[in-house]
């Protein structure tokens, strides 16, 4: 995928003499030593990464790790001390204030903040119009556009409410809508859901993912919550003391933590929420093919000693599940016949999940279908693998993690 944001050797020092601080860092001084000796704070130090188009890139770290500073460097709310920030091929560290303003209007959907940062004296509609208003878009057009976005975030009917009349979740929808109303493709979200209570938070995360499916923005999302990072992020950068410790997908980070710091983080996670079906599935065993006669199918079952078998068509699309005992009974009934015709009634619905289905949901499909393995399928219902009950339990116990990959 296309590179949207490329960050090279980016550093930010808060203080009067950034060069001196960076020099000291090179010579092995720690962040704390520099703060004590020079009264300068290292915000971000020598960071390199690339955000791809239309991905959700999460910056994860504890407070003081520099994640918010790094995000504010991306749209130059903070001016970097050294390094490059290349967005769509333009190094924005070289823009003058006017050019920067124009660039922000064109490329950034503003920002979504933890405390919403919506204007208390404006209605929902007027708040959503804010970005367009700054660009000088005409009243009719920006109103029409804003109403569309308001609808898409589920705020319709509240256009004329003031922020103080709305709940936290609703206020954050306003914040999100304000960003989405602008015709740009980079959305920065700073702890956007951290002030919401857990249920609403979860709901907002789902809605963001749903919106993202349609809107395909490039999102840089800052959070201190690993669960949230893993839920939302296509890729996650874990930060510590102004540096990036590890970048990777949730599974990469869980299965191969780069150091003890990351490991300690990951250990406290609710594993079932992050591990996906794809991570623990086994290669598909032999399947019954449509067109196979009952006796052929029975032979396949016996060979493996299974309680049943998945049935697919010739394109590996999953048709269903056949239980061994029912098949045996059917064959017995029709023993006299030379060629027993296959009875479609034998095929039961199979439990199936996608590769990126979280383990929690895999467990749910187990409780719905008490028999057989769970089929892991792609978007076209083609069989990619199977999950047997034992694998789920094993994956939930820590030791299994290293071998799962």
């Amino acid at each position, binding site marked *: 995928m296309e590179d949207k944001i490329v960050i090279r050797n980016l550093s930010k020092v808060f203080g009067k003499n950034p060069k001196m601080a960076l020099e000291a860092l090179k010579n092995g001084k720690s962040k704390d030593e520099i703060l004590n000796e020079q009264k300068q704070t290292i915000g971000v130090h020598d960071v390199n990464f690339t955000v791809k188009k239309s991905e959700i890139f999460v910056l994860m770290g504890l407070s003081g790790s520099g994640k918010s500073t790094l995000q504010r460097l991306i749209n130059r709310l903070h001016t970097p001390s050294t390094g490059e920030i290349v967005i769509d091929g333009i190094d924005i560290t070289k823009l003058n204030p006017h050019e920067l303003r124009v660039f922000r209007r064109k490329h950034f959907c503003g920002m979504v903040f933890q*405390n919403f940062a919506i204007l208390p004296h404006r209605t929902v509609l007027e708040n959503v119009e804010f970005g367009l208003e700054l660009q000088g878009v005409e009243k009719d057009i920006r109103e029409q556009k804003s109403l569309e976005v308001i609808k898409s975030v589920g705020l319709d009917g509240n256009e004329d409410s003031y922020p103080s009349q709305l709940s936290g979740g609703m206020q954050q929808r306003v914040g999100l809508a304000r960003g989405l109303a602008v015709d740009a493709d980079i959305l920065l979200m700073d702890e956007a859901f951290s002030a919401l209570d857990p249920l609403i938070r979860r709901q907002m995360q789902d809605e963001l993912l749903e919106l993202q499916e349609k809107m395909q923005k490039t999102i840089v999302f800052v959070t201190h919550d690993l669960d949230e990072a893993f839920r939302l992020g296509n890729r996650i950068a874990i930060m510590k003391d102004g540096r990036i410790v590890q970048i990777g997908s949730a599974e990469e980070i869980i299965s191969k933590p780069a150091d003890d710091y990351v490991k300690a983080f990951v250990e406290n996670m609710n594993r079932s929420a992050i591990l996906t079906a794809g991570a623990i599935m086994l290669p598909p065993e032999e399947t019954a093919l449509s067109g196979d006669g009952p006796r052929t199918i029975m032979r396949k079952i016996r060979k493996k000693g299974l309680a049943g078998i998945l049935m697919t068509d010739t394109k590996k699309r999953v048709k269903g599940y056949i239980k061994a005992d029912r098949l045996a009974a059917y064959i017995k009934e029709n023993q006299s016949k030379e060629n027993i015709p296959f009875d479609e009634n034998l095929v039961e619905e199979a439990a199936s999940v996608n590769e990126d289905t979280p383990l929690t949901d895999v467990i749910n499909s187990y409780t719905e279908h008490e028999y057989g393995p769970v089929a892991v399928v792609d978007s076209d219902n083609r069989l990619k693998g199977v999950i047997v009950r034992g694998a789920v339990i094993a994956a939930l116990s820590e030791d299994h993690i290293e071998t799962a990959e």
Partner: protein
Amino acid sequence: MLPYRIPLNDWITAAVNFLEEKLGVVFDLFSVIIYFLVDNLKDGMLFFHPLILIVLIAGITFYLAGWKNALVAFLGLILTENIGLWEAFIETLALVLTAEILIIAAGFPIGIWAARSDRVNSVIRPILDFMQTMPAFVYLIPAVMFFGLGLVPGVVATFVFAMPPLIRLTSLGIRQVPKELIEAADAFGATDMQKLIKVQVPVAKATILAGVNQSIMLGLSMVVIAAMIGAGGLGEDVLRGIQRLNVGQGFEAGLVVVILAIILDRITSSFDSKKA
């Protein structure tokens, strides 16, 4: 202690003389503006029959501050008219309004400036402290030296005395606008002017209006004192009461000042809650 007296008195006199000589044109311009505003406001208000104006003021008070305040205003103004202080009342009101117009014209931009620059703020703060803690009477002397006697030095002294709270509260209000609101505006590519008009001033409105309210109240107190240098209005009646030891006359005029103060306070302190 020192072998000689520091000639502070002479220095200040010399400085005032110097300014008068060099900046005479500016002072003349000031005079013209102030006269123009006071005269027109006064004539404008006296053009109406008192009853019309009383109903109008009571109506505004009712709209902005509720019926109880409106009733107080109505009865107070009827009393004012009845005891023959209507013209003095209007004159004082014109002086206060003139001073307030000038205060807003100068104080609001200065407040914004002080909010945007720490350096400006650090220069202005001690000046404001100085202006506010100086006894009110002291302003009358340079005002008289520059503008002679009459209403102009009265308005100028009021202007200087009553401006600090507006500057202070404008600056404070804008500085208190949450950092994230500013960041949000920046992130959307707002210009400084857009930020000021669409974010900072509206969000700081309540605080700024509190500054307007305070400066009006201070201004009113100063306008009364300014009667000592011939500014006219209700202060003159108070002064006359003192000079002649006429308790009743002084008290009447003082009571009308209170009535005016109540009306102005109720109206200006309601601006915010009404519109928010």
